[in-house]
Every structure is written in C-alpha cells, then in structure tokens.
C-alpha cells in the first residue's frame, strides 16, 4: 500500500511542523514567567558571579530567539537540560518516570475501547429497550463524574471500606522484583517469567486506569450507538437487508465498521485527555509516574523540566494520532486516497 506510506510520511512532515510550533509556544510561555531563571535555578544564596556565569553558560543573556536556538539544538540531541529541582538531566528523569505513566495510559486508553464498542452496539441493537436504557442512564452518570472524583471514590471504597484491590503504594507489591526491560511492568513481569508478579502489577493498574477510562469509555459508547443508529437507515444497509443477508451479519459486518470509524478517529484526542487526567490520578493513587515530577516542575518553575515534559507529551500525542489515522485508513478505504478534494 504505497499510498498509505506516502500519507504517513506526509503526516510525519506536518507532525514536525506542529512540534516546532509547540516548542515555540511552550518555550515562550515558560520564559514569560516573572523572575530570573538563573537565580531560580541556583537558589537565593548563590553568589552573584556564579549566577552570572550560569546565565552566560545557559545563554540567558541572549535574545529569546537565540536562546530558543540553543535550546532546540540540545533538544534535537535528546538533551533537555538540567532539572533545577532534581539537579539531574531532564531526559534521565523522563526516562525514569515516563514508563509508569505510559503504562497507565495504555491500559486506560486501549482495552476500554472494546468495551465502548460493545456497549455502543448493544445500545443500538436494543434501542429503547432495557439494555439500552441501562447503558444510557449509567453513561449519563459516569460521564458527569470527573476523573479525579472517580479516583477519590475508588480510593474511599476499595482503599478503606472494601480493601480488595491495591490502591496506594505504586506499581507493585513488596516482595516482587521485576527487571526493567520495556518499563511496562506487566510486560516486564511476563518477560522475566513471573506471572504472579504480572498479575500483581495488573491489580495495581486496575483502579487508576479504571478511573481514567470510565468517562471516555461511556462517551465512545454513546458515539458508537448514535452512529450505528444513523447508519442503520442508510441505503447500503437497506440494500443488503433486502437481499436477504441475515440481520446479525448485516449488523456485525456491514453496519459496525462504518459506525466505529468516527469513534476510532477521535481516540487520539481521548488519549491526550487521559494523559492530562493521569496527572491527578497518579497523585491520588501515589503512582510513581510523571505527575509528581511535572507538578513539582511546574510549581518550582523548573523551566527545562516543564519544557521537557510538554515536548515528550506532544510527541506521544502526535504519534498516537498518527497511529489512529493509520487505523482509520485501514478501516476506511476512502481515507487512503490523498485528501486533495
């Protein structure tokens, strides 16, 4: 499928433009912060000449575009500079905290899609009968509940009242050691041949990822249901029905695919929202991910760390969207054409 490849390359080109734009945006944003970045980095007690030398070294005396140039040059080499809070390289910090967040987002973002589609299809098939009413009613309540409220409620219920699932205390129970390979705990545990550790890691993931995914899942379900119903009245469905194709085959084959395409195509945005919400959920469940690092960076006005976090999130977001586009292209042949018209 050469056209698919061309489209991917084109998207990558645009993605880099967006990333450059994002970097300018975030770079200017953090430089607007009132206060002297060098002084902030070295603390109030550092002697002035040390601060001045630091300024010199970090190019803080240059104009903003020049500073941006030096910063971007380093970023392209994978160097986000030093964190003023942890006093370590931002890249190193990211490497340490990112996998935990990533694992959480993956679990919250991907498996629930299947539930969403299932619920959407069920709702459409049993339109205005009890399964549909049940799904719709619960979706209203679930969507209305903010993610952090879910997290707090889960903590209250499963952490204190009904402690059947681990709710505080990171990614793994005491007593397990899993050598890091991918940084994704469940996977690493399986790789190292410890199914019980994998199960334990999964149990730790369950509550936070559920809190993150519930709202999105129900929203995707609603979307799927409404597209199923809308497409159900289309001529191409009437046509196969009129030719005697059994109803379940019509639904499963000819109605499902066009109806899930719109749901799938907004998944990229859902993933972005999940990333954002992960910040709070991680704090609530004491999850050793990016959140505390990023929160500290934001509150401590740690310029390099903030830029690093946002840029990495931007890259992940763009990659996710690219992936989603590819999936949509596979599902919908029309998208494989170049979108010239």
């Amino acid at each position, binding site marked *: 499928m050469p056209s698919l490849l061309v489209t991917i390359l084109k998207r990558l080109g645009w993605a880099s433009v*967006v*990333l450059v734009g994002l970097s300018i945006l*975030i770079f200017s944003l953090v430089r607007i912060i009132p206060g002297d970045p060098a002084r902030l980095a070295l603390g109030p007690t550092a002697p002035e000449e040390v601060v001045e030398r630091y300024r010199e070294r970090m190019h803080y005396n240059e104009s903003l575009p020049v500073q941006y140039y030096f910063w971007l040059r380093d970023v392209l080499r994978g160097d986000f500079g030093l964190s003023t809070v942890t006093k370590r390289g931002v890249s190193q910090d990211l490497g340490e905290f990112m996998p935990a967040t990533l694992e959480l987002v993956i679990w919250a973002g991907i498996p629930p899609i299947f539930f969403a589609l299932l619920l959407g299809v069920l709702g459409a098939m049993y339109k205005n009968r009890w399964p549909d009413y049940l799904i719709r009613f619960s979706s*209203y309540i679930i*969507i209305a509940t903010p993610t952090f409220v879910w997290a707090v409620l889960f903590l209250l219920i499963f*952490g204190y009242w009904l402690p059947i699932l681990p709710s505080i205390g990171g990614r793994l129970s005491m007593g397990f050691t899993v050598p890091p390979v991918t940084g994704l705990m469940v996977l690493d545990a399986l790789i190292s041949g410890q199914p019980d550790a994998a199960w334990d890691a999964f149990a730790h993931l369950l509550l936070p990822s559920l809190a993150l995914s519930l709202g999105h899942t129900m929203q995707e379900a609603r979307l799927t249901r409404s597209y199923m119903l809308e497409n159900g009245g289309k001529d191409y469905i009437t046509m196969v029905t009129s030719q005697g194709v059994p109803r379940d085959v019509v639904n499963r084959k000819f109605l499902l695919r066009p109806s899930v395409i719109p749901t799938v195509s907004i998944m990229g945005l859902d993933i972005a929202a999940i990333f954002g919400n992960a*910040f709070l959920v991680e704090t609530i469940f004491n999850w050793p991910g990016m959140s505390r690092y*990023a*929160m500290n960076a934001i509150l401590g006005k740690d310029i390099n760390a903030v830029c690093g976090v946002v840029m990495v999130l931007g890259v992940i977001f763009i990659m996710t969207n690219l992936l989603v586009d590819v999936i949509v292209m596979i599902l919908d042949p029309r998208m494989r054409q170049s979108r010239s018209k």
Partner: protein
Amino acid sequence: MDESWKETLKRSWLKYSESKITVLGLAIVAGFVFLALLGERIVPYPEHIGSFVDFANASGAPSGAHPFGTDLIGRDVLSRIVGSFRNTLLMGVIVLCISAPIGFMVGVIAGYNKGKPVDTVLMRLTDIFLAIPPLVLALAIASVLEPNMTNSMLAITVMWWPWYARLAYGVSSSLRTENYIIYAELTGVKLPHIIFREILPNCLSSMLTKMTLDMGYVIIMGATLSYAGLGEQAPKPALGSMISQGVKYMPEQWWLTVFPAIAIIVLVLGFNLFGDGISNMLGTDES
C-alpha cells in the same frame, strides 16, 4: 408574527421534551441557577461561606443542624457547597462566552479561505493547541500565573477555543461552496456581511448546542484545576478544593469528600442532559 413566534417556541419545547430525561436536566440546571443566584441568602449559615471558625463544631458528622456535616474548622459543608455554585456557573459561562467567539473567528476565517495560506497557518496553530493534553496546558498556564479563579478561567479558555475553531471551520468550509455565499460574493457584498450575516446564523445552532454540552466539561475542568490547588483560593469555597482537602481525612470524615463530589456529579449531569435537550431541539431543524 407574534403567533408564529409562539408556534416556534411550542415546537422547540416539543422537540426539547421529546426525551423526558432532558426535562430533568432542565430542572436540575434551573435549580442550580436558582441556588447560585440566591447563594448566601438561602444557605443555613451564610457566614460559613467565608473565613469563619467554630472549633467547637469542627469535623462534625452529618446531623440535623448540619445535614452534610462540618469541616475541620467547623464550617457547615452544605452552606459552603451551595456557596460555591455561583462562581462555578459563572466560570463556565465566562469561559464559553470568550472561547466560542474567538474560536468562531479563527475557524471561520480559516474555513472561508480553505486551501489558502491563512487556512494552513490558523488551523496548524489550532492543532498545536490541541496537541498539548488539555489539563497539562491548563496546569502550566495556571501555575505560571498567580493561582486564582480568574487565571484558571484564562487557562481553560486558552485550551477551549480550538474546539470552537474546529467546529466553525467545519461549518464554514462546507458553506463556502453554497450558492448563497457564492451569490453574495458575486454581487459585491463585503466580507463582514458574509461572515456575520450569512455564515454565523448557520453556525449558531451548532455552536449553542456545543456550548450547552460543554458547560459540564468546563465545570469538570474548573473543578479539576481547583482540586490541583490552582483555582479559587481559601477561604472561598470551591468544589474541587473541598474534595482535595477532604481526601486527606478520608475514610473517617467521608462527608468532606462525598458531598462535594455528589454536587459536582449532579451539576454536570444536569448540564449534560440539558445540552442533549438543546441538541435535540436545534439539531433536526430542517424539514
């Protein structure tokens, strides 16, 4: 003329109330607006909305005098919850009333000039804003500035307008090939007429629908920022910060967490249902 106006209203109500659950939404929204307007005039302990201390009654479980209990320094939780509604609603309205017009202008200019450099620049800019996870952007902005309600509104507005830009872009880029737009161009009409008289009326119903549907999400976002400590500051009450305070005393003083949480859920639920009703009402306008 008057008669047809009544007819329209009646038909709109029929469409709105087609699904009974949206009527419940309207009732919830009306109730919250009512409570928000009255605020301190209706709560049992108006002075508890501010910085009031009554250690004698601190950390009291729900009781007849304090149905939702009292907080760590003895303030009535019910009064504080009701006292927070006005700012919560105001925030939603202000954020949407600023971000929708901005988004509309960006989207309509890009969409009307589809395929030209203006389009590319504006829509890529929109993409950049969308590329940052919304909460992260809001957190970054809110933390760079002083943490207070105005700045959290600003942060949410900055991340919200791109959605309206996308909406207006979609509508206007398809409208620009409509014959009545082409006719207006051919006959020598000026651009503002095309944007505000021809395109805007066609965007209005979808914008309004989205605005009502978004109320709930803006409220969620505001509560989330406030939970993170970046919204309304003490001693003023905000649902998010009340929950984040309550979490620390969690299983024992559950009422500090549970009641504000329920308040958010019901509030957002009300607006979501209301939005669905508005969408039913404005959606199938044709034929």
